[in-house]
C-alpha cells in the first residue's frame, strides 16, 4: 500500500506535528510505502531552527532523522512554500526533494491513499 501523508500545518498549530510523524513511522514499520509531503506552513515542521523546549514541547524534530531507518526516504516539500517562508532546503533537518507546484499533483498521484492534516 502506498500512502502519502500531507502535512499543511505549522509546528504548534495543533498536535499533528508529532502525531502524523508517528503515523508515518507506524505505516513504514509495517512495510507500507510512505511518502511525506510538506506544503504551505507544513514546511516549517522541518525547519532546523525550531526550539520546542522554549514552547514547552518535546523535541520530536530529531525523529525526522530516523526516517531512513524505516526506509522512509520519499520526503517532498513545496518549493513555493519554502520560498514563502524564506527557507532553503539547507535550512531543513533532513534531505528533501523540493517540488514545483505543477509537479505536486503528479507526485501525489503515485500513492494509493492520501492522509491529510
Amino acid at each position, binding site marked *: 500500500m502506498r500512502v502519502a501523508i500531507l502535512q499543511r500545518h505549522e509546528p504548534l498549530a*495543533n498536535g499533528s506535528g508529532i502525531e502524523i510523524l508517528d503515523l508515518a513511522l507506524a505505516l513504514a514499520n509495517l512495510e507500507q510505502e510512505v511518502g511525506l509531503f510538506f506544503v504551505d506552513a507544513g514546511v516549517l515542521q522541518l525547519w532546523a531552527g525550531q526550539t520546542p523546549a522554549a514552547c514547552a514541547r518535546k523535541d520530536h524534530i530529531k525523529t525526522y532523522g530516523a526516517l531512513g531507518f524505516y526506509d522512509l526516504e520519499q520526503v517532498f516539500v513545496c518549493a513555493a512554500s519554502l520560498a514563502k517562508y524564506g527557507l532553503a532546503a539547507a535550512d531543513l533537518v533532513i534531505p528533501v526533494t523540493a517540488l514545483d507546484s505543477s509537479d505536486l499533483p503528479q507526485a501525489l498521484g503515485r500513492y494509493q491513499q492520501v*492522509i491529510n492534516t
Partner: protein
Amino acid sequence: MANFLIYVTQPAYDSDAALQVYRFATAALAQQQPVLGVFFHQAGVTHSNGFNRPLADEPDHFHYWQALQQAGIPLLVCATAASRRGIRAAEVASAEQPAVAGNLHPAFQLSGLTEFAALAATATRVVQL
C-alpha cells in the same frame, strides 16, 4: 467489493465528523461494503470521551457511535493521543498509582497506530473525516 477504513481526526462537537462518519458507514454497510473499523487519532479521539454530554434538547452523538459499534464496526482510539487529551480507560490500583475511574465511552476501545497501519494495509480505501 471495497473494504473501508475510516480515519477520524476532527474533534467531537467542534466538527461535523460524527454524523458524516455515521452516514458514510451506514451507506457502505447497506451496499455490503465492509467497514473494517473507525480509527480515531489527533483531535478525533475526543469523540470517545464518556463525559461528553449535550444539553437535553441537543442530539446525542453517542447514539450514532453505538449504532456503528453494534453493527460490528470497531471504534478504535489511539491510546497515546487520547491520553494527551484527557481520555483514559479505567485502571486498577497498583503500587505506583491509585485506581483510575476512566472516561473512555464503552462503545470505544483503546488501540494504537500499529493496528491502524495493519488495517490500512488491507483496506481498499482509507476515508478521512
